[in-house]
C-alpha cells in the first residue's frame, strides 16, 4: 500500500510540476503589461529566495544581509556597462559590444563568490545570533558604501542609463519590454534549481543539513563545517548576484534605496513562508510574498495603503495554519508532525 501511495504522490507532483511549468511559460502572453512587470518582479524574488534557501534553509545560517549580494550584482553591471561614473576603456559599452551583459553575468558569479568567501571566512566561525548580527551589519555597510562612494556608485542618485541586454549575433534588444527579462529569469531559475537540487542530493547537501541539525556532531563525523558553510554562502551570493545583474539591466537604474534591510527581510520571509529547505517552497514563497500584494495593488489601486496590512495578514495566517511553510521539505514535515504543539509556532531560526 505504501508503495502505491508514493507512486500516486509522484504522479501527482509530476502533474503539478508540468502544470506549473506550462503556466509559467504561457502566462506572460495572456496578461497586461502591468501584470508582466509583476511577473518579472516575482521571478526576480524567486531567484533570490532560491539562493537564500540554500543558506538559511539547508545550512541553517541566518543571513540577514542577503540583499547585499543582490546589490553587488546590480552595481557590477551598472559600473561595467559604462553607465556609472567610472569611465575606463573596459567600462564602455562599445568595448563589450553585445556580449557585455552576458559576460558580466558570469563575471558576477566570480565576484560574488569572492565577496561571499571574504565575508564568510571570518564570520561563518560564529554561530546563531552572532552570524545574524554580522550579516545584518554587512548588508547595511554595502548599502551605505553605495550611498557614499560617489566616484564609483554615483552615491544616492545611483547609476542611471544602464544598458538593456542584447542577444549577440541576432542583435535582439531586450529594451523596456518585460517579457524577455521574464524568460531570461525563468531560464536562470531552471539552471539554479537544477544545480541546487543536485547538490542537495549529494554528500554536500547531507553535510548542510547535518550542520543545520547539529554542528558539533557534524564536525565530529568528519564534515568540514567551515568549508561547507562557505560553499552554501557562496552559492547564495552568486544566485543573488545574477538576479542583481538582471534587475539592473531591466530597470536600467540602480540606487542604494533598492537594497535596504527590508528587502533582505522580504526574501527571508519568502523562504520561511515557503518552507525552509524546500526548493518549490521558496518559489511559492516568493509568489506569495511579492506576487499577491502586487496583484492586489494592481487590481485594487485604492487599497494601496493596505499593502503592508495584507502582508501582515499573510504572515500571521501562515504562522497559525501552516507553520512548516507552504511546501515543506519532506524532512521538516516529519519533524513538525511529530512535535505537534500548535501553541508554539516554528521560530525563524
Amino acid at each position, binding site marked *: 500500500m505504501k508503495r502505491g501511495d508514493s507512486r500516486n504522490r509522484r504522479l501527482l507532483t509530476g502533474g503539478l510540476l508540468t502544470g506549473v511549468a506550462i503556466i509559467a511559460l504561457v502566462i506572460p502572453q495572456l496578461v497586461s503589461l502591468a501584470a508582466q512587470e509583476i511577473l518579472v518582479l516575482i521571478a526576480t524574488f524567486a531567484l533570490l529566495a532560491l539562493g537564500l534557501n540554500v543558506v538559511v534553509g539547508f545550512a541553517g545560517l541566518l543571513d540577514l544581509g542577503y540583499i547585499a549580494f543582490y546589490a553587488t550584482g546590480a552595481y557590477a553591471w551598472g559600473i561595467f556597462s559604462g553607465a556609472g561614473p567610472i569611465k575606463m576603456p573596459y567600462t564602455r559599452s562599445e568595448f563589450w559590444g553585445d556580449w557585455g551583459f552576458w559576460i558580466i553575468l558570469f563575471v558576477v558569479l566570480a565576484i560574488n563568490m569572492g565577496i561571499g568567501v571574504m565575508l564568510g571566512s571570518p564570520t561563518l566561525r560564529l554561530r546563531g545570533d552572532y552570524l545574524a548580527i554580522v550579516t545584518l551589519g554587512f548588508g547595511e555597510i554595502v548599502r551605505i558604501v553605495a550611498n557614499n562612494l560617489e566616484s564609483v556608485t554615483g552615491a544616492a542618485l545611483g547609476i542611471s542609463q544602464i544598458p538593456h541586454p542584447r542577444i549577440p549575433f541576432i542583435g535582439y534588444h531586450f529594451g523596456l519590454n518585460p517579457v524577455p527579462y521574464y524568460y531570461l529569469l525563468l531560464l536562470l531559475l531552471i539552471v539554479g534549481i*537544477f*544545480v541546487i537540487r*543536485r*547538490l542537495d*542530493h*549529494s*554528500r*554536500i547537501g*547531507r*553535510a548542510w*543539513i*547535518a550542520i543545520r*541539525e*547539529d554542528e*558539533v*556532531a*557534524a*564536525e*565530529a*563525523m*568528519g*564534515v*568540514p*563545517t567551515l568549508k561547507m558553510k562557505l*560553499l552554501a554562502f557562496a552559492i547564495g551570493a552568486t544566485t543573488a548576484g545574477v538576479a542583481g545583474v538582471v534587475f539592473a539591466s531591466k530597470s536600467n537604474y540602480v540606487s542604494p534605496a533598492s537594497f535596504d534591510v527590508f528587502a533582505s527581510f522580504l526574501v527571508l520571509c519568502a523562504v520561511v513562508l515557503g518552507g525552509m529547505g524546500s526548493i518549490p517552497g521558496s518559489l511559492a514563497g516568493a509568489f506569495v510574498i511579492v506576487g499577491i500584494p502586487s496583484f492586489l495593488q494592481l487590481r485594487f489601486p485604492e487599497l494601496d495603503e493596505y499593502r503592508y496590512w495584507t502582508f501582515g495578514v499573510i504572515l500571521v495566517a501562515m504562522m497559525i495554519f501552516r507553520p512548516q511553510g507552504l511546501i515543506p521539505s519532506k*524532512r*521538516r514535515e*516529519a*519533524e513538525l508532525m*511529530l512535535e505537534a504543539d500548535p501553541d508554539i509556532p516554528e521560530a525563524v531560526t
Partner: protein
Amino acid sequence: MADALLEVTRVTKVFGGLTAVHAVDLEILAGEIRGLIGPNGAGKTTLFNCITGVYKPDGGEIRLEGSRLNGFKPHRITKAGIARTFQQIRLFGEMTSLENVEVGLDAQHRAGAISAILHLRRHRIENEEASREGLNLLRFVGIERYANEPSRNLSYGDQRRLEIARALGTKPKLLLLDEPAAGMNPKEKEDLMALIRKIRDSGVTVLLIEHDMRVVMGVCERVAVLDHGEKIAEGPPEQLQKDPRVIEAYLGREVAEDAAGA
C-alpha cells in the same frame, strides 16, 4: 610499545582556575576494549573532547599510530581514524537513520560540488556506496528496519545504536563511546555489550566511558580510573574493584578504610 594505537602523554586541560584533566597518560593497544571510569566530574568527557579535537589540550601530546593529532580540527581527527559518540545523543534529528550514517560515511568521500552537479562517475559511485554501506551498518547494529525513519522518531536505545553506526561509518581505527549504556534497560545493555564485542572483533579498538559497572566489568579487558582530572589507577577490572584508591574515589575515605580493614 609497538602496537600502541593511541598514545596520550601528559595531557592537561585547564578551564579558568579548574584543572579538568591533569597530566593524564593513556596508552591504548590496537584491538582492545578499554574502559575509562571515574566519578562525575572526574574529567572523562573532557579527555574525550581533547582526543577528538573539540578542546585544545593545554599541554601534553596525543598520537594516533605515532602521528601527532594535537591542534587538528575535529573533522581532521575523525578522518585520521578516531570517531566518537556523545554523552547526550546528538543525532541529525530531521535526517533519516540512513542519512545519518551516510554523513559518517561521507568522511571517506571526495566528490566535490562540480562532480555532484554534473553527476560525474565519482559522485555516482560514492553516493551509491554510501547508501549500500549505510544499510550494512544499520544492519550491523540491528536497526535496518528504521532506515527511512527520521532519526528523532527512534527509541532511546535505538538512537544510541544509530550514533554508534554513524561513528562506524567514518571507518575509525578507534571508537570512543561516551556512556553508551546510559538510560538503557538491562536487556538493551546486554545487547550493547554484545555489540561492543562485535565492533572490536571487526577490527575497531574501543575506548569506553561508562558508569554502569556491570557493562564495564563485562566487556573491558583493562580499565583506567580518573579522579579529579588525574589517573589514579589502571588495570584489569577485577583488580580495580579491590583497589583502595578507586573505592575511595567513588565512596569516600572511610569506606575505603573499612574495606581495607575487612
